[in-house]
């Protein structure tokens, strides 16, 4: 039998994940509600008046997404552990990288849906009127989400093999993700406040570089994690 092409393998994995999510809607529903709770909690804790809300809004949005996605990322692999699906996947002709990219794409889609729903609510709760170039948000948010989801998927696969599965992921993911979080928060803040502190879009470039480097390393090492015995 002919070896199926790499994109078709990715597509097969992706189709499976999307179908499972379409039938259960577990990940999106739990993430959405959790992120909403975090936004409400922060607005109670910090009393976002108009002047300060633009400063902290970027951080709240990023942290809400971060917390929400950790729960979903764990589930993405925990589902495969049940009934030894992961072992079955390892026996297919597909390599680990295809599986990894498909999982990242699926999770990226879920988190993006959550952000699309959450975004308007967020603008209402925090009374935001962005003063900078809003179209840049369409660049920053996907880049930041990709950084989160690519690393998150990788380290969820890594931590799912440890004894304290759910506990370990945030402990590894947060330190690794910190540079991307910093870049994301600072660029969102610059866009919302329009303070012009970042004329050369330095933080966005840094975020893009981070995405490229960390995704490449994850792709190279994913087979190792998958085959770890």
């Amino acid at each position, binding site marked *: 039998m002919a070896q199926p092409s790499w994109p078709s393998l990715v597509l097969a994995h992706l189709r499976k994940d999307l179908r499972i999510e379409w039938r259960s809607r577990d990940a999106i529903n739990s993430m959405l509600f959790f992120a909403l709770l975090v936004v409400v909690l922060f607005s109670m804790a910090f009393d976002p008046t108009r002047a300060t809300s633009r400063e902290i809004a970027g951080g709240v949005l990023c942290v809400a997404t971060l917390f929400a996605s950790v729960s979903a990322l764990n589930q993405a692999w925990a589902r495969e552990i049940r009934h030894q699906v992961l072992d079955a996947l390892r026996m297919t002709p597909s390599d680990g990288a295809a599986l990894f990219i498909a999982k990242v794409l699926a999770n990226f889609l879920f988190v993006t849906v959550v952000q699309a729903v959450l975004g308007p609510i967020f603008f209402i709760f925090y009374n935001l009127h962005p003063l900078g170039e809003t179209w840049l948000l369409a660049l920053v948010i996907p880049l930041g989400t990709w950084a989160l989801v690519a690393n998150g998927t990788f380290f969820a696969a890594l931590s799912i093999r440890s*004894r304290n599965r759910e506990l*370990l992921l945030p402990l*590894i993911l947060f*330190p690794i993700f*910190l*540079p991307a979080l910093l870049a994301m928060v600072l660029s969102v803040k610059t866009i919302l406040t329009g303070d012009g502190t970042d004329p050369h879009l330095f933080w966005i470039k840094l975020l893009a570089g981070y995405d490229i480097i960390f995704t490449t390393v994850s792709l190279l*090492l994913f087979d*190792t*994690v998958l085959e770890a015995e």
Partner: protein
Amino acid sequence: MKKLAILLAVIAVVPLMAWGFYQAIYAAPTEATMGDVQRIFYYHVPHGILAYLFYSINFVGSLLVLLWRRSNPERAIVADAWALSGAEVGVVFSTVVLTTGPIWARPVWGIWWTWDPRLTTSLVLWLIYVSYLLVRRFSSGSQMYTLAAVLAVFGALDMPINYLANRLWRTQHPSPVIAGGPDSGMAPPIAAALGWNVLAWAVWGLLILAFRVYVERRQQTIDRAAANAALAAD
């Protein structure tokens, strides 16, 4: 033979560290604007440099684990002992950097801490290697070696960012005095005091590293014997 080597190492380390202390506290000239508080530089900078050394040992050890884990498990375990010891000693040296920094910053800047790129990336580096040590706690068996080694590769990615932080950005942290461009450099007595302290702490750190590798190798032998005994009992 082993005891003699340990004895010789200790004999070498103690006078070296005493000499380093003398150089930093008495021999080096008092800095014109900061005064005596600047002498913390002779501890802060060597520990920063040496933390890179120990994290690099961790990185090389981890790469060797990934390389040998299938073909030569015996050697992979030895490499893992080095990787673990490198990370542990590195975290200790990083902790010294993160402690001496604020002690210096408080009188000089007026604040203990600021979120500038150099300080932030140093803290991130410390956090990543603490999480590396946690992963080793939370997983077990031979897969732990692989998972820890994979995480170590990601930790090593942060090292160049940390190194370049005060070279690429205009930071509140002082700009580098070594390999920092045309304006960098030190007066000879300051360079001498710094050099002696780098040497003394390097010898000290490597000695601790060697002890730690030795202990870890013993532990691995005990663990394997216990595993074999459990298998034999069945």
